[in-house]
């Protein structure tokens, strides 16, 4: 494996800002590759009919999940949407657990009881993935209220799409969080589309989240969501503000999904050439170039690629070999006593 000694010249000598540092940059790279490989694999498995139901991929949006998760501390809480595989993986949940859930196996995160849209791993701070648009913004407020009330220092981070900015719960949550000065960070992943309709066709302002911030007394924050360094720095700033008791932030990250909305959506509604243009701005491509600028060698990067590929391959094999969920879990955990009894 290549070492720091092999590389030249030092970033500082090039006048580059090395505020992030090599260790964190490599972590950001590894995380993005891991999300890319796992999501690509989920898609392949879907085409093989091994991933059932629906699935919403974050291919092309990896820099946001990686950038935020790398800025989070243990104990910080993530609230995700149905497009939540990437955010779940980015908090350190094993690939096998996520693919297992997508493949409806007993080794899945929730043993097949939740499915792709509801990934939850509280031990990793992943407090659920929510499939009703907007529902989790108020819920994230509540978790942040608990932190405020108990004097805990954790931050609640809530991810959602551009389309979500037009539902009532978004506006209720933003106002509530601002009035109560809650340690919550709202992250809008603006991938330019709802399911199939361009967000611009249905929104009164050009930037669906950023242009609403002032209505809630918040700073307008609009960033390049395909540059993991930019995302990471923005996240750090917002988290510091939240931990200092200075209230919520709303961050709009511009990005683009490379795949369709869900399942095998071919994305026919996109103008010709749009996807190709955005692939030029692929977050992973951008980041590989960034790392090169900082003197990280191709070898170092491909070592990471190989390790990640192996993790995803091993996870895939483990899931293929795993049993389907036993029927006796059907009626467990409806109520806190572990069962489902509604009468005596």
């Amino acid at each position, binding site marked *: 494996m290549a070492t720091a000694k092999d590389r030249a010249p030092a970033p500082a000598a090039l006048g580059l800002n090395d505020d992030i540092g090599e260790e964190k940059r490599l972590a950001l790279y590894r995380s993005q590759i891991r999300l890319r490989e796992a999501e690509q694999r989920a898609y392949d498995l879907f085409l093989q009919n091994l991933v059932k139901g629906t699935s919403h991929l974050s291919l092309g949006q990896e820099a946001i999940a990686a950038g935020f998760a790398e800025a989070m501390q243990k104990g910080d809480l993530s609230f995700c949407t149905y497009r939540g595989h990437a955010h779940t993986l980015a908090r350190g949940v094993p690939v096998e657990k996520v693919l297992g859930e997508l493949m409806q196996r007993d080794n899945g995160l929730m043993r097949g009881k939740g*499915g792709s849209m509801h990934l939850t791993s*509280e031990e990793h701070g992943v*407090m659920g993935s*929510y499939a009703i648009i907007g529902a989790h913004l108020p819920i994230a407020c509540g978790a942040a*209220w608990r932190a405020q009330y108990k004097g805990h220092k954790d931050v609640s981070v809530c991810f959602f799409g551009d389309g979500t900015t037009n539902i009532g719960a978004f506006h209720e949550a933003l106002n*509530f969080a601002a009035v109560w000065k809650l340690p919550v960070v709202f992250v809008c992943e603006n991938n330019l589309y709802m399911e199939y309709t361009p967000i611009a066709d249905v929104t009164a302002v050009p930037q669906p989240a950023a242009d609403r911030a002032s209505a809630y007394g918040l700073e307008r924050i609009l960033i390049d969501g395909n540059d993991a360094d930019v995302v990471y720095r923005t996240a750090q700033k917002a988290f510091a503000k939240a931990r200092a008791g200075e209230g919520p932030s709303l961050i709009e990250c511009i990005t683009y999904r490379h795949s369709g909305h869900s399942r095998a959506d071919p994305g026919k509604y996109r103008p010709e050439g749009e996807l190709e243009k955005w692939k030029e701005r692929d977050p992973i491509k951008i980041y590989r170039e960034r790392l090169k600028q900082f003197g990280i060698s191709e070898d170092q990067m491909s070592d990471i690629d190989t390790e990640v590929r192996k993790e995803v391959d091993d996870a895939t094999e483990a899931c293929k070999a795993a049993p389907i969920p036993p029927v006796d879990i059907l009626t467990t*955990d409806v109520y806190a006593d572990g069962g489902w009894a509604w*009468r*005596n």
Partner: protein
Amino acid sequence: MPEITYRDAVIRGIAQEMARDPDVVFLGEDVAKAGGVFKATVGLYEQFGPLRVRDTPISEQAILGAAMGAAMTGLKPIAEIMFSDFIAVCFDYIANEFPKSRYMSNGQTKCPLVVRTGNGAGSRFGAQHSQSVENWCMMIPGLKVVAPSSPRDVIGLLAAAVRDPDPVIFFEHKSLYATKGEVPDGEIVDTLGTAKVLRPGKDATILALALMVPRALEAAERLKAEHGIDAEVVDVRSLVPLDMQTILGSVAKTHRLFTVEENPRLCGWGAEIVSIVADEAFYELDGPPVRITTPHIPLPAADNLEDIVLPTPDRIVETVRRSLES
């Protein structure tokens, strides 16, 4: 025993639990400084302070969502939805979020919260501020649903709801707030999922909930005095969990079943109970079970019109008498 109002019982119940457990917090519209639109939370803000008793914006989704997020992460929130009709604007939390998070996460997510809400008719508020909507909640697996009829039950069931690890929807009847009942001193904690036989009898079982309970009791007294019919009145109290054993036991004794439901006809809680009785105690019945409900219409506002549609002691007496005589 000292008598207090149903309204004061709400205050005492919340205060009892907040004093016991610092993780109990309370939020809602106009509940803190103003003491609630029904004055059922007066003094809590002064007693427990602004960190634990909080006024919210008019944002029902934010209220219930925030309660859920707090519950998931360690608090035991009590959230108020001012009128139960407004549950319709935050129904996502009631129908999709509270009751399903534990199941979907394979037991990882907890949701120990209480939603208190002013339910029911009698105030001439019209169709959007008068409904009894407990049936909306009863149909959802994962929720618990409670509707007390007396001050003592308010305190005891509220305490049980706050201490319960599952989400509980707690229906307070607006027309009962001013009613009084005996309440012993000291801590009161009841048990969810228990019905209560309030008046023993041998000729007919009358099941009732909330405001219908005093009406059923009055009807039972008149049935006895005027017609020699000895009715047993059971306060169902808790729709989920449902105490079918008490109900089946009563039917096995009286062999006749009547339900008194404030709700419109279709899919009422009484229909569910009648179907269970038909399944499990059909041969105990000496006649068809009879449901006494409001007609399947929105609630009107005018005194005389609202009075006609709600089940009254008169209607209960007449229905039971005719059924038993036929």
